[in-house]
């Protein structure tokens, strides 16, 4: 059963939507979007702290806390997690899973320590992948700004062996473009690991998701702009997917 995960990029008090991690639009209060997606049948929510500065961290954590008090599906939180203490703070404020990228690349033992403390299912290794050649992708950090020289499939395998329970792969090239997923990228990760893969970056229409499933078969997809800009609602998206023969969870709507 495919999980559909709205992705909420947060800056300060706002939901924003960057394009290929740059240039952004302010969309509104994240709590309102989160509630609407939960009620419409989102399977999880993904929150990304795009700033991850100490100065604005409190504000981000308050958002997570408020959302978790009224939303009863898993919440994945990414961005700015550097230590077990950072994880603890997020979990105490409503996160169910922690996504790590930059800090895991700097010190892969953080994945293992997180998995030992909170269980594998809590550790999501987030990979920001940029295409650097035919069928070659490089891991980036710091919101798609810094190169690492790491090959994405190699890193995904290492992350799994270190204790990652899921791999979140975001195409830096596709994110926010609504021009379809980087299907080949998702397939290469899917073939490299035997833990669930969450595909992110590029969803623009139902057909993009259907094609991704047919050709790469991830366990979950992230959807951002498509929902935030009202091109689809959770209900219409799930209904269209079901119509295309995709197994999804349909939530009966309250009258």
């Amino acid at each position, binding site marked *: *059963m495919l*999980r559909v995960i709205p992705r909420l990029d947060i800056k300060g008090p706002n939901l924003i939507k960057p394009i290929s991690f740059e240039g952004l639009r302010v969309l509104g209060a994240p709590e309102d979007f989160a509630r609407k997606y*939960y009620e419409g049948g989102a*399977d999880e929510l993904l929150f990304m702290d795009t700033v991850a500065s100490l100065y604005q961290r409190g504000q981000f954590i308050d958002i997570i806390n408020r959302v*978790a*008090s*009224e939303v*009863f*599906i*898993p919440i994945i939180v990414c961005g700015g997690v550097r230590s077990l203490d950072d994880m603890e703070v997020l*979990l*105490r*404020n*409503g*996160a*169910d899973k922690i996504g790590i990228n930059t800090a895991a690349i700097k010190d892969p033992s953080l994945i293992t320590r997180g998995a*030992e403390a*909170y*269980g*594998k*299912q*809590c550790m999501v290794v987030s990979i920001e992948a940029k295409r650097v050649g035919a069928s070659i992708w490089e891991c980036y950090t710091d919101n798609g700004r810094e190169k690492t020289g790491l090959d994405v499939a190699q890193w995904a395998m290492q992350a799994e062996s270190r204790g990652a*329970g*899921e791999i979140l792969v975001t195409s830096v090239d596709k994110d926010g473009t609504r021009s379809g997923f980087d299907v080949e990228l998702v397939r290469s990760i899917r073939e490299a690991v*035997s*833990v*669930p893969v969450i595909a992110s970056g590029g969803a623009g229409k139902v057909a993009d998701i259907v094609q991704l499933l047919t050709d790469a078969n991830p*366990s*979950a997809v992230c959807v951002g702009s498509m929902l935030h800009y009202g091109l689809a609602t959770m209900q219409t998206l799930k209904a269209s997917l079901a119509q295309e023969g995709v197994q999804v*969870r349909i*939530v*009966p709507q309250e009258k």
Partner: protein
Amino acid sequence: MTHIAIIDYRCGNLFNLLKAFRYLGASQCEIVTDASRIQQFDKLVLPGVGSFKKGMENLILAGFDQAIYRHVSDGKPILGICAGLQLLMSSSEEFGHTKGLDLVQGQVAHLKRLAGDARALVPHIGWAEVIPQGRDHMANVDMPSKVRLLAGTEPHPLCYFAHSYGVATVPDDVIYCKTPFYGGEFVSVIERRNVFAVQFHPELSGRAGLTVLNNFLKFSE
């Protein structure tokens, strides 16, 4: 007002479970680290994630095993969640063989084995159907049992799972549900008298999960 203790034995994140109970109006619900306080409570919740062996060690070290036995033999309800369901069983194959609380007879096995399919992705993370099984002993008819925890949910509700181990079978006198997993299946709900357990995370299973928690909250014999 029912007093509910969520047992904290340092195995995972309990805050969203507490939030869910509070949301349902259970103001007298708290996270408890001191086993000697357990007898003050009407209902226990044994949550948990991760290693069975570490879970058992931590329970015993804190004296929660004895507190749980006393609570259950007093006829008071307990709800095991995820690894909490597994710890109620006789033993686990994790690290060879580890003894559990043995409140329900049965073994915990790795999901790769229960799946009967080498391509199975483990951990199992996501939504899956919870299907009542067997024979209704109360009504003495061959039809799926009335599962008390599922009262008021849709038939075969979808719930959220996140686990690497599972239970293959439980004894005949237990009311239970199963969940399909690749070519195999695992036990996803257990009920016997005052012992309740779910393999999924009710606090993360949307409205269906809240209904399950509310049924446990309201349960009285």
